[in-house]
């Protein structure tokens, strides 16, 4: 990541494609991510949104927060709808019925709409090679319906369908590696991002939009409501996730892995876990178990990055 902190305010594009006044909770980092994605893409963009928090907070009839063309059809099909828009715009430009210009086609969904119920539609759209960008806003549960677990919920997190009880420590499965599933489709661009690192995020979204073919960006989106943490800590929680290597920031360009933010000093996962109510019940041995898994996963990623470097 470039060191641009000093110039940050000046460098952010002014345009907003989601208007203020939406209904997201205080401190919602998911809507912050949406805002940054919008800034990166600009106004020549059309959006297909999945059902979920970002849809519900932005589109109660008869109002809308969207300043770009936006369509919501259902929970599991944002990728399919977006692929239809891409094909539709393409054929109409080819037949000379609408002016030829670059229009970014964005599909967006939560972790549930992406890694669970929408995985098939997403896989189909990625495989067919549509020129579109899919953004997953991962807040690690079904928040819109009341904090139920998803396959993206991390081990040990308490949700309303993976509660921490006398015999179970919350979620008992490990988080699905969605970016890796996207990589397996051999698409030109895959990246992870987090709104706590806004420039890194916007740069990746731009790259994704400019990629020749499908692109996938997985955005770690802190949800203070579902994670049981004060809203003013959500940007910090995102940083802690990255600094503890729970959520490394990297990109995979044409199969080549690259770390985009090298953590100066890796923190223990406990720093991240302890500020969130959803992990409150974790015992030291469970934290140790998580630490080991995080370290292993990070090492695996580093190995892929080294391999990519050796190959080029």
């Amino acid at each position, binding site marked *: 990541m470039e060191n641009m902190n000093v110039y940050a305010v000046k460098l952010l594009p002014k345009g907003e494609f989601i208007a203020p006044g939406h209904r997201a909770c205080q401190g919602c980092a998911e809507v912050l991510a949406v805002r940054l994605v919008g800034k990166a893409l600009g*106004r*020549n*963009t*059309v959006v*297909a949104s999945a059902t979920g928090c970002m*849809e*519900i907070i932005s*589109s*109660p*009839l*008869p*109002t*809308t927060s*969207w*300043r*770009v*063309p*936006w*369509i*919501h*059809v*259902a929970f*599991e*099909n944002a990728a*399919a*709808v*977006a*692929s*239809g*828009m*891409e*094909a*539709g*715009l*393409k*054929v*109409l430009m*080819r*037949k000379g*019925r*609408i002016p030829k210009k670059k*229009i970014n086609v964005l599909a967006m969904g939560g972790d549930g709409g992406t890694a669970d119920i929408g995985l*098939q*539609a997403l*896989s*189909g*759209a990625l*495989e*067919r090679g549509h020129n579109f960008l899919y953004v997953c806003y991962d807040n690690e549960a079904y928040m819109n319906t009341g904090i139920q677990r998803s396959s993206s919920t991390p081990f040990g997190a308490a949700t309303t369908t993976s509660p921490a009880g006398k015999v179970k420590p919350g979620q008992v499965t490990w988080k699905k590696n969605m970016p890796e599933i996207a990589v397996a489709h051999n698409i030109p661009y895959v990246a992870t991002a987090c709104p706590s690192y806004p420039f890194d995020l916007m740069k990746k979204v731009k790259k994704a939009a400019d990629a020749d073919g499908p692109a996938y960006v997985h955005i770690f989106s802190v949800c203070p409501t579902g994670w049981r943490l004060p809203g003013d800590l959500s940007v910090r929680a995102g940083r802690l996730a990255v600094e503890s290597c729970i959520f490394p920031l990297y990109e995979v360009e044409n199969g080549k892995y690259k770390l985009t933010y090298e953590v100066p000093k890796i923190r223990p996962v406990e720093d991240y876990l302890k500020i969130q109510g959803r992990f409150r019940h974790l015992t030291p041995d469970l934290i140790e178990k998580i630490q080991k898994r995080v370290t292993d996963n990070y090492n695996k990623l580093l190995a892929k990055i080294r391999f990519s470097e050796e190959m080029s």
Partner: protein
Amino acid sequence: MPKREGMEVSIAASEAIRLANVDAIAAYPITPQTHIVEHLSEFVANGELDAEFIPVESEHSAMSVCMGTSAAGARTFTCTSSQGLALMSEIVFIAPPMQLPIVMILANRSLSGPLSIWNDHTDVMMVRDCGWIQAFGENGQEIFDLTLAAFRIAEDRRVLLPFMVNMDGFILSHVIEPIEMMDQETVDKFLPVYKPKYRMDPDNPVTMGAFAMPDLYTETKKAQDEKLKASLPVIEEVWKEFGDLTGRYYHPIETYKAEGAKTLFVTMGSFGETASTAVDMLREKGEDVGLCQIRLWRPFPYEAFWKAVEGVDTLIIVDRATSYGGPGGPVASEIRSALYTLDPKPRVVDFIAGLAGRDVAPVNYEDMYTRAKARIASGDIAGYEIYGVKE
């Protein structure tokens, strides 16, 4: 006068799609619809049709992609059957409130289980209340004609609703029939290039698919209902124009030898052809029988239907789907309710026949006629009889 050519009805349907110059097709193969998708992909592969053919991974995505292409402003077509319709049904209901004029051919097939690939109307009845315009063709020519006219109706600014053309699987989809084609020039005049009212255009942003709270949901549904009902005169107008152009006229309700008849069979789709043969046979035997075919199922053409049954004593409804544990087959239930306010009104005898491809021959209609008389004589006409069950 263009000449008639013998061809499989699925090919004729594909020809209609080609002549309609559709911009986008998204579909997933399922028997008995497959021949249509195959022909369409061939057209696209050979450059005979300049369209995007999107080979989706499921019917759910087929319908979802169609929502996207149509929202982008492209003339859009899909086709499916049975399980495919069941899988896409979630999205089928979302197209009408979003005013997307997608055209679908439904090659009607039974639903599992048990698994069966053969024809009946269980699939379409499952989505009866989805808000699409729903019409039935009786033969290949009708499928060709109704499909072409469907785009004109769906895309009419006064309508803007999706249109479902029902084509009986195998009985129509896989048979070879003489079809009178239309030339491109005539079609282009009848069906100009689609100019969408709303589309996904960054220069004029619109929001499609907002959600409604209880304070507005009812209003959106009332508006949707009014819109579907208001499509009826446009449908009639376009069918009339199509008739003037081709000499082939279509009406929401079609009758055969119904003038002065005391008993009418009521059918939908390809049943009509056999039923009319049966009517001829019964007429020869001196019976006072005619046929009433419901071509337009949604919006239901009440006025035309009431007119068709004026002075009739008995309606023998031949349903092609079951409403388990209900008051009758889906068609009979609707007809009974449509008749309720009439005085005097014909009595209704309901048979459920032809499930999953079970043949219903003219003799079976004669038999149903006899059984209906017996049921009337015994005063037992409530409910329904599943016809032709083997003992």
